[in-house]
Each structure stands twice: as C-alpha cells, then as structure tokens.
C-alpha cells in the first residue's frame, strides 16, 4: 500500500516539477522579474497594437495600420492639430497661398537630415510627392488636386493646383504625404522600402523587424529637433490581439500604451493608479446604411421608423459603456464640418410603430449584415433585433467576413443585397469630403455608398463644398452642414454613434495628446517618460 502512495506522489511531483522548472527559467531570464517588461525601463516605450502594425513599408503605399510606425520614421511638411483646428510646422517652416488659392508655396526647414545622412532639399519633397502620385496606391488619390510641383531653390517648394483644395490639410495627411529619400530607391531598387527598409527624417529609425515579430525603432541621433530633454530612446510596436492579455500587460507595465480595450477591461483599469485612461473624440463613427433602393425601404417613412426604433442611449451607455457619443449626422464630432445645431435622432418606439402603420407596412422582414468577429457590432445588432421585434419587424442578423459582406452589398442583382449594412468610417485626412463623397454621393458603380443613395442636390452641395474649402473653410463647413440637414430629412442611414478613442497608458508617460487626425498614432518624440 505504501508503495502505491509513493508512486502517486511521484506523478504529482512530476507535474509540479514542470511548473517549477518554468518558474526557475523565468527568474533566471530577465534579471529576476517574473512579469516584468520593457516599459519599466525608462527609455523604452512599448505600443500594444490590436492588429499587425506593419503591412506597407513603402511610405507611398501606406493606407492602414502601419501609419502608427511610419509617422515616427517619416515626417510631413505640416501637422494638423485636431483639438484646436491649428497647423504646426514640421518640415516646412512656413507657407502661403495665392489669392485664387491655386498656388501654394512652402519654405522648408534648413539642415534636416535623412537617416542615411543626406540633407533634405526641395527636390526630395518634389520627388516624394511625384512618386506617390505616379504609383497611385493607398491614399494617393488625396493628392489629386496637385497639378505641378516646382522647386525654385533648395528650400522652396511651389505647388500648382488643378482646382482649389485644402492643400495645407492634404500635406498634413497621415498617409500619402510623407517625405522620404527617393535617391535610396534609385540606388537600391524600387522595392527597397517594401522589403522593410526606410529612409525618412523622423525622430526614430527602424532597428529591427520581421513579419510576426515586434517592430523596434531606435532614436535617430541627428534628428532636426534635437534630443535635449527627456525622450523615449527605443520604441517597440507589439501586436497583442487578445484583450485580456493586453489589459494585464499594461497593468504590469509591460506595455506603455494600448490602442483599445473592451469596456469591461477599461472599467477594471480605471481605478488602477499605475495607468491612466485618456478619452478623446475620434474621427470614426458607426453607421447603419439603409438600402434606399430596396422595395421594402424605398418609402422614407419606413426608413424613418427604423431610425426611430434604434436604441441610441442603450447602445452608447450599455454596449459601448461611454466609449461612444450620440451622433447627429455622418460627420463625427470633432471633425470640422460637424454641425452641432443638427438635432440628434431620438429613440421613439411608439412613433416608429405609427410610422409603419401609416406606411401600411406589415410583417416586415429585413436583413442586416455586420463584420464577423466584431463583438460591438454583434451586440448592437442583437439589441436592435430585440427592439425591432417589439414593433413586429423581424431582423435577420447576418455576421459575414468583411469581403463577403462588401461583395454582397455590391451584388449585381440589387434584390440580393442586404437591407441594413453596418460599417465604420473615418476620413483619409481632416476633411469632411471623405465622408460625404464616399458615402452619400451618387456612384456609377457601387463602392462605399452602401445606402445606394442618390440625390442631385446633395451631390452638388458636396462637390461645391470641396472646392470652396481650399479658399474659405468656414463657408465650406456651412455647406456641409446644409448637406447633412438635407440628408437627415431623407433617412438614408442610422447614425449609430461617434466613436471615442479610449487609450490606456502607463501613468509615467507624460504629455500625451491623442490626435484623431492621425488615427491611433502616438508621436513618441512628443511624449516623455
């Protein structure tokens, strides 16, 4: 009998030994700190990103999440501050535009060095923009107004435009406006950057990267703003998809900054003194596009009923837990052109019911599509479904992979398309045109106008406002306001909410300002350990 017990004990010990050796390995590892991380080292910052930080290394092709890295390696002529609608000089010291708004002159800062050591001149600016336009990839279409670029001397760049446009905002864009050393591409081949190299003027240089591993940046000693004062010297961009892990890591100080977290984790972290939670209105919103071409929804009364039946307060407060605000139109709060005077839609189930009665609609069955795996969209869709059921409308909720969702929306046979399409939207740079034109301007071929909306009056307003913006931004904003008011009378979509950016940062990270014009970007040079 005793022998049996020893054997059992042996087996238990074996299991324990496995855990034991692990802990031993760990303490031997990074100098005896079990869950320690880089953020505890004062000079290293770690950015915890939900999705892979780099896809496009080529600054001309960039159009997605890589901008969180590229904006620390490359710089633009100017930078736009969303908070106070102002512009800060970066590579250009100053600029002026002609009376007619068609000629813009930029005066470059002197002694700006590329990471390869070369001094930046106006020729580099010209060549960067010209290459981006020529490639035509990513967000290059925002450069469409540019006709020619001239370089009267090494420090001066003159842009001639085809039509008036907000060139100051365009050259501040988070993508397609980076200045880089094109000579390096002539020497090393045009895919040199794509292969994971860089040559920018920014404060940080690429130290190491390979697919699936963190991106590591290190300080560029000859940076034109200098390195006096306290700065992070190394920046790591790490992908942490799992929310739990991310929350734990920022709590332990392994991450300096976390781009987003579900409400539950945020609430748990709010009382934690080792982190701060920073909330800023973003340029992103969630819209439920109503299929105006569908027979079921062609009557604006029915669409109005759907708009009234959407439980705005519960979505903003319960599902989003205060990480979103009520919306009153397609343009999110914080982006110029947003009109505070427009009334926000109100949840009114009784009104929705009587509207449906008026329209003579019975037994309405609608399909709604959203992107698979997005738990916010899923919860909102199910909440909306439960609400609609109360007024006798059946909502068939379909989660689909984004491609399939979009493919269905573009189906050649309109009767196959969905009735309601949930989609996030954000602008390519600080300009309402990206919202208004892409989402509600008449389209010959369906692309992003998921309401299939077409209204000549509104088309005209959008087109005119865009051209006006280059000369008189205030007047353009009024025109966008008018266009939104008109849209609201037609009920082409449900303005579900305006997103708030909620970042969790280490409490030691100082001077952080979230700039929604550069989505998810932290300008690491401007924050201090």
């Amino acid at each position: 009998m005793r022998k049996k017990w020893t054997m059992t004990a042996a087996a238990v010990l074996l299991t324990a030994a496995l855990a034991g050796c692990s802990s031993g390995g760990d303490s031997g590892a990074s100098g005896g700190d079990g869950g320690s991380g880089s953020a505890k080292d004062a000079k290293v910052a770690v950015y915890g990103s939900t999705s892979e930080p780099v896809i496009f290394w080529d600054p001309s092709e960039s159009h997605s999440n890589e901008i969180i890295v590229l904006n620390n390696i490359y710089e633009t002529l100017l930078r736009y501050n969303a908070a106070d609608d102002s512009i800060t000089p970066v590579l250009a010291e100053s600029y002026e535009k002609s009376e007619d708004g068609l000629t813009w002159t930029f005066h470059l800062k002197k002694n700006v060095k590329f990471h390869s050591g070369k001094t930046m001149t106006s020729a580099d600016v010209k060549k960067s923009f010209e290459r981006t336009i020529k490639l035509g990839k990513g967000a290059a279409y925002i450069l469409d107004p540019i006709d020619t670029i001239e370089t009267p001397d090494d420090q001066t760049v003159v842009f001639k435009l085809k039509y008036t446009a907000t060139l100051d905002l365009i050259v501040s864009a988070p993508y397609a406006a980076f200045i880089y050393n094109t000579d390096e591409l002539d020497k090393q081949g045009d895919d040199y950057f794509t292969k994971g190299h860089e040559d920018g003027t920014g404060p940080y240089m690429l130290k190491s990267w390979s697919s699936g591993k963190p991106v590591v940046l290190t300080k560029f000693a000859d940076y034109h703003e200098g390195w006096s004062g306290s700065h992070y010297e190394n920046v790591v961009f790490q992908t942490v998809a799992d929310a739990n892990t991310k929350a734990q890591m920022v709590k332990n100080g392994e991450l300096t900054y976390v781009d987003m977290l579900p409400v539950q984790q945020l609430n748990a972290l709010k009382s934690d003194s080792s982190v701060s939670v920073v909330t800023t209105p973003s340029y992103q919103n969630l819209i439920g596009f109503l299929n105006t071409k569908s027979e079921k929804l062609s009557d604006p009364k029915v669409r109005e009923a759907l708009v009234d039946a959407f439980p705005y307060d519960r979505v903003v407060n319960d599902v989003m837990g205060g990480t979103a605000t009520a919306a009153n139109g397609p343009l999110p709060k914080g982006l110029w052109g947003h009109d505070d005077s427009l009334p926000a839609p109100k949840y009114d189930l009784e009104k929705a019911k009587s509207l449906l009665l008026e329209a003579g609609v019975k037994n309405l069955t609608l399909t709604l599509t959203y992107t698979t795996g997005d738990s916010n969209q899923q919860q909102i869709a199910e909440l909306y479904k439960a609400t609609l059921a109360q007024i006798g409308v059946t909502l068939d909720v379909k989660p689909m992979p984004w491609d399939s969702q979009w493919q269905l929306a573009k189906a050649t046979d309109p009767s196959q398309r969905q009735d309601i399409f949930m989609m996030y939207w954000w602008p390519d740079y600080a300009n309402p045109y990206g919202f208004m034109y892409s989402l509600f301007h008449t389209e010959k071929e369906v692309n992003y106008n998921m309401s299939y909306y077409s209204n000549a009056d509104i088309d005209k307003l959008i087109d005119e406002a865009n051209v006006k913006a280059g000369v008189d931004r205030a007047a353009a904003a009024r025109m966008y306001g008018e266009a939104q008011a008109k849209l609201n009378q037609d009920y082409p979509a449900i303005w579900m909410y305006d997103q708030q950016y909620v970042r969790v940062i280490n409490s030691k990270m100082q001077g952080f300002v979230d700039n929604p014009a550069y989505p998810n970007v932290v300008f690491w040079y401007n924050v201090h350990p």
Partner: protein
Amino acid sequence: MGKSKLIYYMRHNALVTFGFAILALLVLASLLAPWLAPYPQDAHGAVHTERAFLPPSGAHLFGTDALGRDLFSLVLYGGRISLSAGCIAIVVSVAAGALIGLIAGYVGGWIDEMLMRFTDIVLSFPPLLLAVSIASLLGPSLSHALLAIMLSWWPWYTRLIRSQIVQLRSAGYVESAIVSGKGAGAIMRRHILPNSLSPVIVQASMDFGSIILTLAGLSFLGMGAQPPSTEWGLLVSQGKTYVLSNWWYAAFPGLPILLTAVALNLAGDGLRDLLDPRQKGVTR
C-alpha cells in the same frame, strides 16, 4: 488474481457508470431546457443590457453575459444545439461510412480497391484543416461545420467495417450461408452487420467526444455556429475576451463541453472492455 480482476472491473464500471450518468444528466438537462431555464427568452434573442456581466448568484447561477443574458439558460439551450449537432454528425458519419465499407468489403474487386483508395485520400487530410477549408468555402455556419466534420469522419468507419467484413467473410457460417445461396442483403442483415456492430458502437461513442470537441473548436475559431446561436463553443469564444475579468462567461459554457467529452470517453472505454476486449486501450 481472480479477486483483483473483479475489483478492477468494478472500479472500472463505476467510472463507466459515472460517465453514463453525466451524459444522461446533460442530455436530460438539454431536453428539459424550456422547463429548467429560468430565463428561456434569453436564448431567443432577449437582451437586457442593464444587467450585463453579473457574477454567478442565486438569480443567475452561471452569471450573465455581455448582453445581460442568463448564462445558465443559454448553456441549457446550447446543449440542445451542441449535443444534437454531435449526434447528427456521428450518426451520418457512421451510416455513410458503414454503407461504403459494406459495399467495399462485400463486393470486393476493383470497386473495393477504388473505394478504399478514395477513403485513404480523405483520411490523409488533416481533419481540422478540411473542416476549416469547407467553412471558408461555404461560409462559416454550424451546418457547414457539421458537414465538414462528417466529411472527415466517415472514412474511419469505412475502414473499420470493411476489415470486419473481410474477416467475417472467411468465417465458416458466412461461407456456408453464401454456399447455400442466400441473397447478399440477407447475409449482410443476418450475419455480417450484427457481428461488426460492436466495434462500431465502441468507436462511435469515443468519436462522439472528439466531434463535440472539434465542433466547439470550430465555433471557437469563428468557423462554426454564428451569433446569436448559443452553441457552447461559440459562447466560450464570446467569453474569451473576458477570461481574466469575468471568468464565468467562458468557464460555464466550457464546463459542459469538458463534461460531455469526459463522459463519452469513460462510457466508450467501458463499452470497449465489455463488447470488444481485443481493442483494449488502443485509440487513434
């Protein structure tokens, strides 16, 4: 010797009985879900965002989820989906596999050769990978995940049945039945099927567990059941985000998956010892 063996079987059977008891309990609970569930409407689209993420309590035995739905009710209803889906998958796989195996084994010749090579080819696909490819071909849904599982499981039964039949064909009583001119159908019904049944039952009871696990895994990866289904694997995957903050969300839907698989494995072990002692302890 005799005595210890008896004790061994007793103990073993206690485990087997335990397995069957858990299984019966799970099946019963799922069947009686409409009567047992305290909030049956929660499994049918009701949403109460005001009581989201409540920890387990008297009112909500398993706590509530992100939409304020009672997890105990969801898990009860989820059992109906998960268990019946598993049943369908196993029954269809066995039926299809057995039919092909019967034909191959009984007819023999080039048909046998062809069918068995085809079986080999299907068996060479990693099961999860096949399931995953089908899910991506037809779009993620519970029925597609089921189809994928059935497609990758049937060949095992074809192999099993065929080898049984090849053995049995040469058995004296079958040979004499053939010689006495009985029809193929009669011989299969009378002699072959009953004799090859027990290894199939054993195999199927073990596989049932793996199928439940695979199905849950597919749903977990987003390639099986889709919301607002209450399939167990899907519930776990929805609770995944909250493991460290609201442990009950993933834990309680995960528990019945584990229990079902354990119960089926214990039951399968016991059945094997009782029905088919030759295969003792061999799993694939």
